[in-house]
């Protein structure tokens, strides 16, 4: 939800390391992070802060999971990637390596997917021409009833 970014971030993990000077906190081991309807599950989550304000979050996993409800009437967006970068100020998400994003029933996969949370817009890029990670988009057919309009 739009209000998610104004919510506190709650995070649980097996262990953690804080570096006050650099403003970096690294959470390791079955990491679960919640901020409003946004949830990230990963093996490792690094929280970057400037003047004690969180600016960027990087989640790493095999894969790392992300989900968030864009608005009350819309379905939850579900995404995965070996690395997920979440830029709080710009409300942007980068899904890197084995990336996939499911939104309003359609699913996109590729090497890298950039998702603008505010605008609910997706931009994907595939791997090199030879790699199997080309962009794929699956849009389910509309149920028979609405095929006419």
């Amino acid at each position, binding site marked *: 939800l739009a209000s998610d*970014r*104004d*919510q*506190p*971030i*709650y*995070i*649980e*993990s*097996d*262990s*953690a*390391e*804080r*570096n*006050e*000077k650099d403003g970096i*906190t690294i*959470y390791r081991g079955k990491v679960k992070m919640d*901020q409003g309807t946004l949830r990230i599950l990963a093996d490792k989550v690094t*929280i970057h*802060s400037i*003047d*004690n*304000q*969180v600016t960027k979050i990087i989640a790493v996993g095999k894969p790392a999971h992300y989900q968030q409800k864009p608005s009350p009437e819309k379905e939850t967006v579900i995404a995965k990637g070996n690395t997920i970068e979440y830029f*709080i*100020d710009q409300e942007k998400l980068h899904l890197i390596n084995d990336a996939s994003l499911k939104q309003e029933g359609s699913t996109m996969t590729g090497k890298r997917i950039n998702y603008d949370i505010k605008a609910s817009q997706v931009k994907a890029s595939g791997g090199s021409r030879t790699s199997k990670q080309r962009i794929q988009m699956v849009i389910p057919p509309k149920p028979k009833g609405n095929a006419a309009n």
Partner: protein
Amino acid sequence: MIRNWLSITALIALTLLFITLWESPPAQFRREQAQPQKPAHIATTVLHDAKSTSFDAEGKLAYTFNAEETRHFQINPKKQSGKDYTEFTSPYMVLHHDPANPWYVQAKQGKAKKNGTIVELWGDVIAWQIDANGKRSELTTTYLRLKPEQQYAETDKPVMIDTAGSKTRAVGMKAFLQQDRIELLSRVRGIHEPI
């Protein structure tokens, strides 16, 4: 018939004897259990409102130490040894690894061992730092083991870290104060406040 009676009476007598011995054992049994307590160590030196200042190898201020009461115990009256120890009440230390941003540590009780290279603190242990903007980072636990010369602290107890913008709880911690780096060892729960 008589033999039956004899064996029953013997059984009853033995049982009664057993109960009597169990209830009130003769004095010599009791004396073995209640060994006299070894006399507690007697403090060889007691100081009140002591304050000490320590410098590192290059002569720079390393840490200062205050305590309401300091009691020093020398195990062997004839010569000092690594086993000697010092107990203190209301200890308060300032670790000056970074003169602009020292760590302050206080507790209810404490004990210094191995010629002061190890300091154990317990009872409302608080360690805090105040950054250049005046913001306070605070760490609280029930027990802390410090190595002042190495600016290092650790605990296996629950710990809470409160900074401007975040609150973190865990069980077990290793703090490398010189590098401002803290490792939280298990069951970590963090809350980061929004922008």
